[in-house]
């Protein structure tokens, strides 16, 4: 069960793994934002998204993120794709080339298809970005990065260390609780609970046989954990030292410059395309052939 979790940390030693988590965190947010920028017409959008996909794909290869498990886990997006198409069918839209027309109001255009594809691609890219971060960075390091970004809040006496410790404990217990859930499910199955069959209500009922024991064990676990932490001298209000520290090296600087360059280009393109228009026009403008 454990190996199937999407985005689980994979202990390779690639360049992406070795980069500073603070940089990776920043890059993730930046790239996510630029994926969602407007780029004018569909040609523009798909060209930019294509380039971004290529970059993200290369990062995935370098970071040794498994494409196979990535695409397998995306298979449920098909459902969303179909759902969105049906949704589009019922929303009155205008387009030039109809695919299927019921009447004037209920028509599915090629434009709709592109629109849905556009949404899906952006979602896939966003998921890919998140997976790159989580599968190349130890949860603890992500927490350190988060803690670093929260540092300014210390001025207003915000307990940043408490927050980051809470998050790291939550991350630490995910696999433990998944194993526990698995165990409870098996125990309930052996007592005749069927998790797969039945309609909605029956399914909800069978799920409660999992959720309640899981919650109970969660509480007793957290209680024991709190005692164990206290027994090892944890005091949330005392200053704690750090076992690990983050190092921002020249590699991180190069990567940061690269990401800022990409983001800068995409943002410029986004602004230009909203003021100028088509992709050709933007390219011509950049080469100085055409002026506004």
């Amino acid at each position: 069960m454990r190996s199937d979790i999407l985005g689980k940390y994979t202990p390779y030693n690639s360049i992406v793994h070795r980069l500073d988590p603070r940089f990776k965190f920043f890059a993730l947010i930046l790239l996510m934002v630029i994926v969602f920028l407007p780029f004018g017409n569909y040609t523009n959008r798909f060209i930019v998204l294509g380039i971004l996909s290529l970059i993200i794909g290369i990062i995935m290869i370098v970071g040794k993120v498994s494409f196979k498990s990535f695409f397998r886990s995306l298979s449920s997006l098909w459902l969303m794709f179909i759902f969105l198409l049906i949704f589009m069918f019922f929303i009155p839209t205008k387009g030039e080339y109809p695919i299927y027309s019921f009447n004037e109001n209920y028509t599915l255009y090629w434009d709709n298809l592109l629109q849905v594809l556009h949404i899906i691609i952006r979602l896939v890219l966003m998921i890919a970005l998140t997976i790159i971060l989580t599968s190349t960075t130890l949860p603890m390091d992500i927490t350190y990065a988060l803690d670093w970004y929260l540092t300014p809040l210390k001025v207003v006496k915000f307990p940043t260390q408490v927050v980051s410790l809470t998050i790291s404990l939550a991350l630490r217990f995910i696999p433990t609780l998944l194993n526990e859930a698995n165990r409870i499910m098996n125990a309930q199955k052996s007592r005749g609970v069927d998790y797969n069959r039945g309609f909605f209500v029956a399914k909800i009922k069978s799920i409660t046989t999992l959720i309640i024991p899981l919650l109970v064990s969660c509480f007793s676990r957290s209680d024991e954990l709190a005692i164990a932490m206290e027994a090892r001298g944890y005091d949330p209000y005392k200053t704690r030292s750090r076992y690990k520290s983050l190092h921002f090296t020249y590699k991180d600087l190069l990567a940061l410059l690269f990401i800022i360059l990409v983001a800068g280009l995409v943002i410029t393109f986004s602004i230009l395309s909203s003021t100028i228009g088509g992709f050709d026009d933007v390219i011509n403008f950049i080469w100085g052939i055409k002026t506004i």
Partner: protein
Amino acid sequence: MEKEKIIEVKDLIFGYEKDSTILKCISFDIFKGEYVTLIGHNGSGKSTLAKLLSYILEPTSGKVYIEGQELNEKSIKDIRSKIGIVFQNPDNQFIGSTVEDDIAFGLENRNIKQDVMKKTVLEFAKKVGMDKFLNKEPEELSGGQKQRVAIAGILALNLKIIIFDEATSMLDPEGVEEIRKLILNMKEENPELTVISITHDIEEAYLSDRVIILNDGKVYKNDIPENVFKDEEEMRKIDLDIPFVLKIKNELAARNIIIPREIKTIEGVANYLCQ
């Protein structure tokens, strides 16, 4: 020579409800550098006693003194810096996300400098034989290995007293054996260290310096293991067995083969017989 008392339990009474008491007036002393095991069958009150010693529960009456300091609400923080506790469930005391993070947790709480911490973590990981697993996550470790990490985390704090609160009860036989050996090694390396082990493992009890048997909320016996386990019939009466090694020794003694007292393991007996 008068030995130095490190833990003193005086007339300890405890009950979850008013009219039913689980511990009925328990008193005993533990001396510096001793390795004491507390045993008893299920329901004898040994896990309750463990919780009282670590102040997870408050006694109904009676007192616990640690190095002369009374255990109460005020002194608990101070006392916790003297006592390390290894708990029962290996998962629920693994705080860090990797082995090294977990060993470092207690050190971080003490605000120890990073470079010192790195050395200490490595040193104690080596001591418990986990130095090759520093980057491993808890999910990749066995129960015995997780307990060893917990022990390393406590040893690194350089404490005077370590309490094992049924630390082996959730482990497989190999894990139990690992921890048993580790405790003995620990004692050998640092004779000053006081170890209290609350356990149901009579084999472990046999290896300790002194055994305290709890039965029905009272101290039933408090003596060296040879004396405690002398009478098999008596032990049966309180639902306890005698150690396997001792059984073999007794059987051999019935055939006029006397094994010396110092030999406490099966391997030891086998080696002695082959001489």
